[in-house]
């Protein structure tokens, strides 16, 4: 599959390779942080800082940064917030939001007890895809019980259950977490179509790879920091400190400095495991994800499965589900990493209406040109009038 012509035109990207990307389905994320660990290990990223408890549910990482390229967000919500989220999702439908592709016919839910597997795309339903088959099989759970209360089951979605178990007496969907839910979402670099970081990089250190992703060349970046401000998502950051000291035998010689301080002082972010992609390998986070919440593949395929999944969830009455980054007309031209969210983006720490700053650059240059002309004209006028002053 070749990249869509719009993407190729917009980014002057003419490789025969298909554009690759992630689809992060937060409805089946269990918050295990395997992606964070796998990413850190594979890319040998330093520790962020001293270990500390941030007091934000199970999230002690904080956010994406130079040393954290996958970040799992944890949000605890009570019933009113769930209702609000469901309502805001419904409002999106009522707005007549564009359907990016034709709505796919959802596969009929499996009749099994797996709450989530039935809702996952067909290829995930078997095997590890079932993340939510906890003891809380929908209506049989006591009213006060539910997914969030059963320690091992971190099912953020709750799930509408099977066809038979998921409906109440009046036929409306009954959710097994009526009064509490736990949202978990693995955030990552968006690999935007219109990448702010890439646009503003003055050295050419940031480049668009043959897979349509955006990567920093470590030996070129001089750490000017412009890209940090250019990113509308706050992903890329300059690595100022942090040491990686791989485990060694006790008493062994210390590691050389080049190992201990990898790429100090330069901008760093997710590469979508460029090194692994070149070997036809799956990125570390996607490979480590036990629930297939993180899916990796050609972006077109990811988009399709994202659309299928959101249609399925809506069919089950879970109108809080929505896609993030799937719209090529948005402020960044669509993202390479698509997300399925269960609440407004800002709840997850994502901007609600990101816009690549360079979109306004022509206007800025025009205004700056006017200002320059004004200053030079003022100079001429000052010397013309100066003798009288």
């Amino acid at each position: 599959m070749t990249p869509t012509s719009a993407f190729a035109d917009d980014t002057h990207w003419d490789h025969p390779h298909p554009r690759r990307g992630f689809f992060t389905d937060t409805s089946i994320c269990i918050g295990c942080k395997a992606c964070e660990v796998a990413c850190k290990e594979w890319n040998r990223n330093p520790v962020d800082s001293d270990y500390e408890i941030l007091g934000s549910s199970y999230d002690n990482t904080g956010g994406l940064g130079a040393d954290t390229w996958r970040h799992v967000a944890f949000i605890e919500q009570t019933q009113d917030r769930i209702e609000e989220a469901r309502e805001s999702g419904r409002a999106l439908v009522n707005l007549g939001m564009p359907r990016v592709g034709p709505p796919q016919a959802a596969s009929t839910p499996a009749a099994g007890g797996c709450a989530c597997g039935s809702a996952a795309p067909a290829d995930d339903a078997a095997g590890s895809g079932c993340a939510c088959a906890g003891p809380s099989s929908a209506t049989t759970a006591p009213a006060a019980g539910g997914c969030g209360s059963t320690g091992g089951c971190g099912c953020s979605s709750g799930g509408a259950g099977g066809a038979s178990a998921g409906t109440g007496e009046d036929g409306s969907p009954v959710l097994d977490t009526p009064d509490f839910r736990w949202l978990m979402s693995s955030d990552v670099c968006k690999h935007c179509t219109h990448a702010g970081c890439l646009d503003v990089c003055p050295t050419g250190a940031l480049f668009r790879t043959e897979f349509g992703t955006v990567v920093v060349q470590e030996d070129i970046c001089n750490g000017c920091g412009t890209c940090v401000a250019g990113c509308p998502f706050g992903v890329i950051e300059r690595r100022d400190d942090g040491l990686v000291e791989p485990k060694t035998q006790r008493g062994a010689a210390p590691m050389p400095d080049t190992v201990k301080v990898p790429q100090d002082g330069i901008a760093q972010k997710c590469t979508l495991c460029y090194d692994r992609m070149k070997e036809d390998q799956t990125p570390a986070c996607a490979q480590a994800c036990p629930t297939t919440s993180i899916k990796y593949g050609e972006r077109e395929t990811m988009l399709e499965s994202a659309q299928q999944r959101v249609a399925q969830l809506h069919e089950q009455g879970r109108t809080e589900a929505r896609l993030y980054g799937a719209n090529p007309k948005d402020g960044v031209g669509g993202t390479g990493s698509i997300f399925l969210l269960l609440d407004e983006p800002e709840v997850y720490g994502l901007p609600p209406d990101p816009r690549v700053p360079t979109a306004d650059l022509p206007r800025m240059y025009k205004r700056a040109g006017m200002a320059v002309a004004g200053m030079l004209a003022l100079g001429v006028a000052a010397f013309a009038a100066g003798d009288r002053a």
Partner: protein
Amino acid sequence: MSLSPYDSYRPPEEPRRTRRRKNRTPGGGAFRRGGGDGSREVAMVPEPEFTSYYGRPIVKAPPWDSKIAAYLFLGGLAGGSSVLALGGHLTGRDVLRRNGRLGALGAAGLGTIALVADLGRPERFLHMMRTFKPTSPMSLGSWLLAVFATNAGVAAAVEVDRMTGERLPLGPLRPVLRVMETPTSVGAGVLGAPLAAYTAVLLGDTSVPTWHEMHGHLPFVFVSSASLASGGLALLTTPVAETGPARVFAVAGVAGELAAMRVMKRAMDPVAAEPLEQGRPGTWLEWSERLSIAGGLGALLGGRRRWVAAASGAALMASSALTRFGVFWAGKESVKDPKYTVVPQRNRLNKRRAQGITDDSITTVA
């Protein structure tokens, strides 16, 4: 929430403290809204509703510190001074020309040092010259600064040579230098204005909410600020007989800055404009305005007296520095609170939706 059937015997729990508080701002405590014990002013404008992830920032501030803020000032000062130096050169104001050239090179040199020192890898500063990239204001600015500094350097070298009575060991290069005097002076003068303006584009072309909201008007603020700063430097360093044009330049700069700042704040989303009026940046900008008015009035009314001119010049330069520091740090502040990212974005999204544009949201349902 109960964990087992036995939990029904427990006394009722206190309601959960919601972690995701609305209207969460750093430093905003229990007393924020109601006036509490009466020691604080009650906010008359309701805080905008917004949600965030534990009040954490969404976008990141660039890792720039006061060195960059200083460069914003020095770049403007250098640019404006070279404009005045060119004028002095063409109209035969020798001291104004000399001081303008030396000031331009000095400010550009200091600014370049500040820029390089702020890099994460200063030893790679020449990587800025690898490419010429119009989409990157930083790239354009680097080239601009390099070409400007070269021109200003030659012009200043001529000046130094003249000051030392042609005692520099230039040998056969002296005639070449003399021939280059006018072209480089014109080059530095003409490039001075863009040098003063591009830094506004550099700040505007970011996701930092307050800076980006300023992008339409900041160039006018910055060139005005550069004009009044360089006019101030001339007033401070040059005898009043030659500073007539510099006074006009400075006073017009003051007027331009006052007007541009007002128009800019009005055009901004009110929430994104808040950091310009709060905290230390707010105080700096306030003082910058006071000093520029004082310096402008001084230059206008008493600019023919040496000491009044010098004091006005110093006030104008301080004003320009405070403007740059205020704008710079207001942007850095605006990143710390997600409110400044979320609320303006929500506002513009809702505005588009109200206009019936519903196909450009990043959030879709299919």
